[in-house]
C-alpha cells in the first residue's frame, strides 16, 4: 500500500516538475511526413561541431541510439569512414549531405550539429546540444530537423539524452505509421 502511494506521489511530482519547467519533448522545426514515408534506409554522417571530436562522437551515439530504437522498416548504417583519412579532416558542408547519401546508396542521410560544454569540475554537469537533420536523398530536401539539449555528469549520457530528445518525434512517427 505504502509503495503504491509512494509511486503515485513520485509520478505526480515528476509530472508537475516537468510541466512547470517546460521540459516536454521539443517540437521539430522541420517535419515532412510525406517524405518520411519513403525513408527505409538511413546513413549517419558525421555532424558538424566547433570543437574537435564532438561531431563525430555525436554521430556515433546517434547511430547506436537508432540501432537500439530498432525502428520498423528502417535500416541504419554508418557513413563511409574514409573522411577520417584526410589530415585535419573537416566535416562536409551540410548542403552536400543528400549527395553523400546518394553515393552511399540510402534513402536519407542524417547529419546535424553538436555543441558540447565540458563539465567545469568533477562534480558539475556536462551540457550537450544536438541538432539532428535528416535529408531526403531523392529530393535533396531537409525532411526532419529537431534540437535536443541535456545535462548530465556523465558525458555520454548527456549526448544520449540530447539525441533521444531530438529524434523523439521522428521515432514516434515511424512507430505509429509502420507495422513491424
Amino acid at each position, binding site marked *: 500500500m505504502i509503495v503504491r502511494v509512494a509511486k503515485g506521489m513520485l509520478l505526480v511530482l515528476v509530472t508537475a516538475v516537468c510541466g512547470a519547467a517546460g521540459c516536454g519533448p521539443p517540437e521539430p522545426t522541420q517535419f515532412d511526413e510525406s517524405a518520411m514515408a519513403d525513408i527505409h534506409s538511413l546513413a549517419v554522417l558525421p555532424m558538424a561541431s566547433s570543437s574537435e*571530436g*564532438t561531431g563525430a562522437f555525436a554521430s556515433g551515439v546517434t*547511430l547506436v541510439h537508432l540501432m537500439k530504437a530498432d525502428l520498423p522498416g528502417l535500416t541504419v548504417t*554508418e557513413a563511409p569512414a*574514409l573522411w577520417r583519412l584526410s589530415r585535419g*579532416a573537416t566535416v562536409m558542408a551540410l548542403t552536400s549531405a543528400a549527395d553523400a547519401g546518394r*553515393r552511399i*546508396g540510402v534513402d536519407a542521410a542524417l547529419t546535424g550539429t553538436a555543441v558540447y560544454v565540458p563539465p567545469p569540475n568533477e562534480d558539475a554537469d556536462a551540457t550537450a546540444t544536438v541538432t539532428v537533420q535528416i535529408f531526403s536523398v531523392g529530393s535533396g530536401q531537409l525532411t526532419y530537423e529537431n534540437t535536443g539539449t541535456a545535462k548530465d555528469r556523465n*558525458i*555520454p549520457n548527456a549526448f544520449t539524452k540530447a539525441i533521444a530528445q531530438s529524434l523523439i518525434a521522428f521515432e514516434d512517427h515511424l512507430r505509429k505509421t509502420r507495422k513491424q
Partner: protein
Amino acid sequence: MQPPTGANRLVTLVVAAAVIVLVGGCDAQWQLYDAAALGSARKLLVMPAVGAPGSDGPRVGPVQTGLLITVLDQTGRFTVEGPCQSRQKTIAEAGMGQAVWDQAFQADLADQLDVDLLVVSEVFDFRATTQYKSAWYYVGESNWTESTYCAGVSLRLISPADGRLVYFGMGEGASQLGYGPALLDATRAALIGVTDYLAANPAPQAHAEGGRP
C-alpha cells in the same frame, strides 16, 4: 521478528540498486550486434581516431589510433593495420574529394587491402581535474595539488562493404599518474565486449596458425 513492510521493501530495493551501481561502476558499455562477423574477422583496419574537445584533447587522436592498434593486436586474434596504406591508396585513387562518401569505393578499398572490419574511434573526454589540498603540520601549513586525468573513448567496428554496425563499445578511465594509463584503461574498457567474446570463442586451430604473420 516482524515481516518486512512495504516501506522497508522500498528502502531495501533503493539501497540494493545504489550498491549495484556503486560496486559495478558505469565505466563501460558495449553491444555486439553481429557476433558472426566479429568471429570470422581476421584483419582489422584502424581508421584515424578523432580527438577530444578541450585544451589537451585535439592532439590525442593519433595517440588513440596507436593505442587501439596495440590493444587490438594484443588480443592475438587479428592482423591489425593502421591507416597509412589506406590513406595513400585513397588519396591516389580518389583525391579525398566527394568520393570519400562512396560506399562502393570503401568496399573496394577494403577488398584491395583484404580488410574484414573497420575500427573507428573517438575520444570524447580528455581532461585533467585538479584538487587543491592543504594540511597543518607541527611546523606550519602544507599546500599541494592532486590531479586526476580522465579519458573517455567510444569505438565501433563497422562492415566496410555496407556500413553495418558490428560492435559498439564505450569506456572511461581515470588515473592520478597521467593521461596514458587513463586512455589505456578507457580503450580496454571500450573493447571489453570484444575481448570477452574472443575469450569465449577461441579461434579454430588452422585460423590461429594461419591468421597472423
